[in-house]
């Protein structure tokens, strides 16, 4: 597995902090509440380990811990990745309700749940990816968002990746004023994409130090 130096790791966390700040602002406008998001840690782990980790974290938080809803988007460009936003399934309707307001009847809300989740995913993932692209001075072309429900392993496997492919796991804690909603973002990368990402981080560091 590709290892990041301390400086590379620090740079990546800083970039994600900026991206998550952008995502928090977007999320706050979406749900009309103050939203605090943090990036306590990032880690590169195998897809299988990421699924186990997610499963155990969600088991402690959710009413139906084995079910996750996820929105994925594939990105190509400076590096290729599948970005996946995940929430416990039982929080999905609550999020959609916050987005569209109290006036929409429950039946209509349920009908549009998948579409609304796709739009939430689209906004949050693009806020993170867009920041990466801007910081790297590159473009990342994204696919349309897709909605999935399943176990953590099924959701992380939507890209068709192998269980030993690398997942850049970003644990985002969404803290809303009135609602405690935990979400996770994962970026699935293969080895070649991981090298490309490392190269982009080093170019960014070089620019930051005035060497490029």
């Amino acid at each position, binding site marked *: 597995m590709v290892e990041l130096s301390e400086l590379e790791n620090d740079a990546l966390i800083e970039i994600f902090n900026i991206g998550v700040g*952008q995502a928090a602002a*977007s999320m706050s*406008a*979406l749900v009309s509440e103050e939203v605090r998001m943090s990036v306590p840690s990032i880690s590169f782990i195998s897809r299988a380990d990421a699924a186990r980790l997610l499963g155990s974290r969600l088991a402690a938080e959710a009413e139906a811990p084995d079910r996750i809803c996820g929105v994925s988007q594939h990105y190509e460009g400076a590096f290729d990745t599948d970005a996946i936003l995940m929430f416990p399934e039982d929080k999905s309707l609550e999020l959609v309700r916050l*987005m*569209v307001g109290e006036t929409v009847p429950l039946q209509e809300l349920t009908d*549009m749940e998948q*579409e*609304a989740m*796709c*739009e939430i995913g*689209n*906004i949050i993932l*693009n*806020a993170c*990816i*867009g*920041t990466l*692209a*801007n910081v790297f*001075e590159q*473009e*990342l072309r*994204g696919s*349309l968002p897709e909605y999935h429900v399943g176990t953590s392993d099924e959701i992380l496997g939507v890209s068709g990746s192998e269980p030993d492919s690398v997942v850049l796991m970003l644990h985002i804690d969404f803290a809303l004023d009135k609602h405690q909603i935990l979400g996770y973002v994962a970026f699935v990368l293969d080895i070649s994409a991981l090298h490309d990402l490392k190269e982009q981080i080093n170019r960014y560091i070089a620019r930051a130090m005035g060497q490029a």
Partner: protein
Amino acid sequence: MTDVTPERTKTVLIVDDSRVSRMMARQYILHLQPGWNVVEAGTGEESLDKARAALPDLVLMDVNMPGMGGIAAAEQLRRLAPALPISLLTANVQSATRERAEALGLGFMEKPITEARIAQLLALAGG
């Protein structure tokens, strides 16, 4: 006595593959401008047909959509109606997208859709 010609009702064309986004944009537009018309299209291709029929005063265009996509659709709309105000309304916050919008003479507004953002966009059509 002065003749007063009633002002034509303004029409906004919302182009977005997300039904939820169209619904939110429509709701804010009609809250801000209750007398205006709102026309919706779910794809870039559909937006061209709807624009020909409705002759909108403003187009709000998503970028990432199935089919031709928002930027290609906006380019075609620009050829059909060179003076028509068109703004991208997108989650794609990348500088490359903003620069492309600027080069094509399109407005740019980030999602999520909020009433304040819609109010800014309606001003492009005199709202």
